[in-house]
């Protein structure tokens, strides 16, 4: 069974206050984000719980959840690497760097390391074209990447 953590409950209280009466469905994305951060994925139990709180059908919650790549249906690693493969990054050689990262972590693109530390995903444009090639690890952007820089970044995370 899914339950929000105490900290999450406090945040939910604040989030729900932002929206006027009868508009609480607007809190859907913030609540999904809380679940993703808490559980590192959004499972059906959590969707049902969000639906209950926001008076939405669980199917509707799932239909929203399945649109956004920031929400995943199976647990992701402690560090979620979103590697931009859009045009600017691609022109600057992101394909090789992505392959390098996968090899370094010894996983397929889209996979998670066995120790549940890293998950590697392709991602469409993350709006940092001036700094391409780039990747996002959890909430941090890393720009102007090179293979060495990637090794160093991955090594610095524990």
């Amino acid at each position, binding site marked *: 069974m899914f339950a929000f953590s105490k900290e999450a409950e406090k945040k939910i209280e604040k989030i729900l206050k932002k929206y006027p009466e009868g508009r609480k469905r607007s809190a859907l994305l913030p609540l999904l984000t809380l679940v993703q951060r808490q559980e590192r994925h959004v499972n059906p139990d959590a969707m049902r719980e969000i639906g209950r709180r926001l008076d*939405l*059908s*669980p*199917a*509707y919650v799932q*239909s929203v959840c*399945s*649109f956004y790549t920031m929400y995943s249906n199976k647990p992701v690693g402690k560090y979620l690497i979103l590697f931009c493969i859009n045009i600017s990054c691609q022109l600057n050689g992101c394909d090789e760097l992505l392959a390098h990262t996968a090899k370094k972590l010894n996983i397929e693109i889209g996979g998670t390391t066995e120790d549940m530390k890293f998950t590697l995903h392709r991602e469409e444009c993350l709006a940092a074209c001036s700094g391409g090639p780039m990747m996002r690890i959890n909430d941090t952007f890393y720009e102007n990447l090179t293979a060495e820089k990637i090794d160093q970044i991955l090594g610095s995370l524990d």
Partner: protein
Amino acid sequence: MADDQVTLTIDDQTVSVPKGTKVVDAAKSVGIEIPVFCYHEKLGPLGCCRMCLVEVEKMPKLMTACTMDVGPDMVVKTTTPKVEKAQKGVLEFTLLNHPLDCPVCDKGGECPLQNNTFKYGPGDTRMDFHRAENLKAGPLSPVITLDRERCIACQRCTRYSEVIEQDNALVMHNRGFNNEVGTFNNEPYDTRFSGNVIDICPVGALTNSQFRFKARTWDLTNSDTLCAHCGCNCNMTLGVRTNKFMRIEARPNDLVDDGWICDKARWGYDFLESKNRLVEARTVPDNGTMVFSSPTTQDAAVRTAEAIKKIVDEHGPESVGFIGSPYGTNEELYLYQKLFRLGFGTNNIDHKTYADSPGLPIDHYDVSEIETADLVLVIASDPTEELPILDLRIKKVVTRHGVKLAVLNDQATLMDKYAHLSLRYNIGSDAGVFAALTAAISGEGMADIKTTGIKADQLKSLVEMLRASKKVTLIYNSSALTGQSVAVLKQLMAMIKNIPSIECGAIPAVPHTNAVGAMDMGILPDYYPGGVPVADGEAIQQTWGETAPTQPGLSAMEMIRKAESGELKALLVYRANPVVDFPGGKQVEEALKKLDLLVVHDMFETETAKLAHILLPSNGPGVDDGTTTNIGGRVQFRKGGLKTAHPPDWKIISLMANTVSEEGDGINYITSFSVTDEIAKNVPGYAEISKKSIKKEGMTRVSSASINATGAVSKESSPPKPEALKLRIANYLFAHNTILDATSTLAHHFKPSIVHMHASDAKKLKLKNEDDVVVVSGDTQVSAQVEISNRCNPGGVVLPNISDEQGVWGLANSRDSVTWVEIRKV
């Protein structure tokens, strides 16, 4: 020309339509077809499939005709080379991943994609790549098959779920390039109205599992018929092939069903081929008088008439009686009351166990009047479980037309979610609430409402809501009221009518298919057809002749009591099952056993049929023709579809009538419409009803005026024991009974027996959720599981009637007062 009309030109034709009409509908109104997939007039515009592109003068690009409102002097062209090229392009895209399995697809022959491709599409495709492979024919629910390869993602079904059924059970997952129709966590899509997505799917992605691979659609013989399950009388098409039932589809009639049917209408017709059907007449030797064992129905009918006549001759007309059914057609019921009144000289005729009388002190509103009201007041009715299509209509007007909804009920229903004001009175205190409301409206001040469970300010809000409304549509279920409180309710109606600023009408929402018709046809001990009271001797003799009885007869419950005491000798029960459906249970069975003659005329081997001396089979809906009158008073024709050599009920009844007629052969009706014509002649309010007048959309009959009903608020009965609770028997749409039997396609909807309790009562009785208990009244027990749902106020329990076997009506002694029950843990 009125301001709200817009005139435009479509393909050189001048069209004038109301403002706000979409171009696609404007074109349709003059016979110009603009092809569509995603657009459906009941769902409103979306514009995702791009099939409806048209050229509009002064607009640089092609426009989607389904999203564009008409504008004055707009010039629309639907067949230019530019449009045709676009249509070809759109279809080529739509067909990119669509499999070419039309030869084995159930939609073939009635498929918009097939039709549009044939008319507007390219003959070829440039798609050289692999087509997407996807789920092929998996179950979306036990009754719907989903083929994701065929889906063109038009979103009609998901929008139906959102806009019409409003439960968002069916959604688009993975929005974007990989979007697909699905449910939450792949759970079955098994709502009450799920089947409508089959009708609106423009491809073969959603198909009826029951009909799958049974027949090609063009081989079906389709009958325009009505549903026989509830008082809505939704229009539907019955598809038959080689005299076998194939499928049911909705047949839109905005005045009745708004284009939809519920799943019970679509899949609740397995009874046509039920093992439990009564197929041949049977007589049981009784004191040696009935000697022949396997008679024809005609023989048995003649013997029935002779045997009842003999009892009348020996013991007088008051010794025989008729219990009819609110499920019979007007013709069948009309003929039966005529047989008993004129043939046997008795008014011992009834069809119900609750109190109600024909006529209303206010207008009898048609169902469509819900749309033009500004307040809908639902009283003691649970549309979702009793009259499902009403549920969709109410949701629609509340969420989309800004109509206000007030609910006055003793149990929680799904309507509460949509209500602007929802008041819950204590079980059994309905009369008190109506009287208090009447007093409040008349300005007599607040009556004592302490015992009703409703607070003074709540009642005041309801009065304010009423007073602020211009047009009120009242929906009430008299079969869910206690004692004589329907009469108090009618006084309330008369009081609302007296407010000069309010236009007010009512829809009597008794769930049974032809409950309104049964009252109109005089299946009542104290009223002749058309609401003519038996006391009105002059009017009766004018229509029915000198010999027509004018003494009030026995009600259904009185007939059972007189059978018990031996005063009633013979009873004919027509398509009713008193042993299960009447209050009393075992006592009813014992009483019926005491009869000298019990004739049961039914479609099924019911518990009552098992006691019968003579059994007459009835063909029933799907086979016999006839008219029924829906809750809105609309008379429509229910055509049979399946053929049989067995005589229809109206023939069986008229054979009985002719047997006892003193004028020899009596009347010979040629078709069911011959009876309809006689109804038009003899039943006030039905004068305009004829084969022709009801052909298209049916026709509302004229409601009779109500005789000033007097009903006093009876004193609250006190509990026999301190821990006793008041019982409310609720309806459940998919109850397991003779209609939906164990082999029913809808068996997945069957529910266990649940007793709904208020938390405070459960605490007192030390009960918790899922405790196994028995609900006890006298010698009768019903097993159930506890659900602490606060579905009613403290002091009561709600027990949904989920199956015949459960036997909830055995708990009640009568409908005269509230039933007290005890909840005992087992």
